[in-house]
């Protein structure tokens, strides 16, 4: 298996998360190898976003541990996890609408150790998404949906992450825009940033990742190398129609 040969970047062990009495995640374990693109596939309410939010410290786990580069990060506040090298492009982009595109990107270099390098990082983001350079002095509230998503990704890259979590970055976008963003995602990955991709679209997930996990009702229902997984079996696991759970 691939993750035995490569260094492990993130390890989630036996993770459970509750919202009150509701068990959003039950005993999830997964491994993210360094340099890979790992996708987490599942329907609405399967626990994908909860999983990412818990890795980022936004939700607190009831049980289990999350380790990033041999450092226990579960229980740490979000801003410390970001400083350690993990960040997320959240579902619905969450750009700062009261700020210009440039100020949004500069927020990504907020942490003191990133500020000296901000010009270089900005250039990297602008070459990845030239449209952000064109609109750099506009308020981000006037951007289109695709541009917002690019801004959210650009802002995340500004934090100089080793691991980038992408929560539903294609949600509500036109197919041509989605295709473009996924091309950029590959480029980001080739720069050495490990990526976790959360998606509802099975085909797109399998096509754009090295390894995939399928989540169903808060549990891992199926996993495997993306090229080896059979799309029909994945779709069955997605809807809970087989015995893998």
């Amino acid at each position, binding site marked *: 298996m691939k993750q035995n040969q490569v260094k492990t970047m993130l390890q989630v062990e036996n993770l459970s998360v509750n919202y009150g009495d509701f068990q959003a995640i039950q005993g999830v374990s997964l491994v993210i190898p360094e340099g890979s693109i790992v996708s987490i596939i599942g329907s609405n309410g399967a626990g994908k976003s909860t999983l990412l939010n818990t890795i980022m410290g936004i939700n607190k786990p009831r049980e289990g541990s999350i380790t990033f580069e041999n450092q226990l990060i579960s229980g740490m506040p*979000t801003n410390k996890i*970001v400083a350690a090298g993990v*960040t997320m492009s959240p579902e619905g982009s*969450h750009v700062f*609408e009261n700020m210009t595109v440039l100020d949004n990107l500069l*927020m*990504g270099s*907020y942490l003191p150790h990133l500020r000296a390098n901000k010009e270089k990082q900005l250039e990297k983001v602008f070459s990845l998404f030239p449209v952000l350079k064109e609109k750099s002095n506009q308020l981000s509230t006037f951007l289109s949906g695709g541009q917002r998503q690019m801004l959210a990704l650009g802002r*995340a890259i500004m*934090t100089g992450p080793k691991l980038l979590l992408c929560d539903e970055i294609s949600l509500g976008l036109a197919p041509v825009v989605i295709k473009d963003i996924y091309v950029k995602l590959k480029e980001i990955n080739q720069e050495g940033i490990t990526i976790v991709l959360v998606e509802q679209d099975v085909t797109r997930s399998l096509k754009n990742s090295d390894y995939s996990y399928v989540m169903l009702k808060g549990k891992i229902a199926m996993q495997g190398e993306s090229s080896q997984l059979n799309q029909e079996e994945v779709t069955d696991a997605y809807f809970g129609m087989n015995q893998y759970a």
Partner: protein
Amino acid sequence: MLQSLVNGILLGGLYAIIGIGMSLVFGIMRLTNLAHGDLMILATYTTLTIVTSVTGNLWIAVAATILVMVALGFLIQNFLVNRVLDKGSEPALLVTFGVSIFISNFLLKVFGADNKIIQNSLASKNVISTEHLSISAMYLFSFLVGIAVILSLHYIMQKTYFGRSIRATSCDRMAAELNGVNTKRTFSYAMMVAMVTAAIAGVLVGSTFVFYPSSGTQYLIIAFGVVVIGGMGSLVGTLVGGIVLGVAQLMGGHIFGSAYQMLSGYIVLLLILAIRPNGLLSVGARK
């Protein structure tokens, strides 16, 4: 007529600096700080105490007051407000109400109910003094300080990492955390900045008008008026709000008699609310 207009504009600068701390705190944590007026008057009494019993130099007293207020702002935010802020805005509102009652009664106990004023050389001087128009040096000074404070805050908010982190936190707390901002600490910093403005406002008010331990409420209402007219969370709006309220009060007083001064100010406030419910220059009207 001209006199009332000019005085109204100058008074507006003072009103703006009274409102700005409240606007800042509301903008970033959606908290209505009911203790804002009392904290301001606490700063006034602090300056008075230092200037009469420690040093005769007003500038040193003002600097010391700012330090005291910043420390107090940190304590209030860190040990009172931050603890309840996650439970929604109502508990935090009640905390500030408690702080307000505590401060006004503390001042009453320590200083008594007599009126006081901070003596200074500007109070009795006029910059311009003609038959038709006289401009008080203190009013002009307050106005200029108000403008200077707003311009500096505007610069800090737009051009520094500190300012951007405050704006980011006020827009989207989770996204700010995802960029490495410790948002609870940012709340404390914002409260400390608000306390700097409250200290300056307190000194200006105490040098211009007489004050009592209960004066805080009166200035809280002015701060509300300024912030509501200008739009919550907008710096430029605060200046506009201050001037609109100042002019409305003094022009109303001039036309209908001074008994109607306060009333005319708040009639204009209601009219503006009816036409533009979010204030003249509102930034975040989503919530």
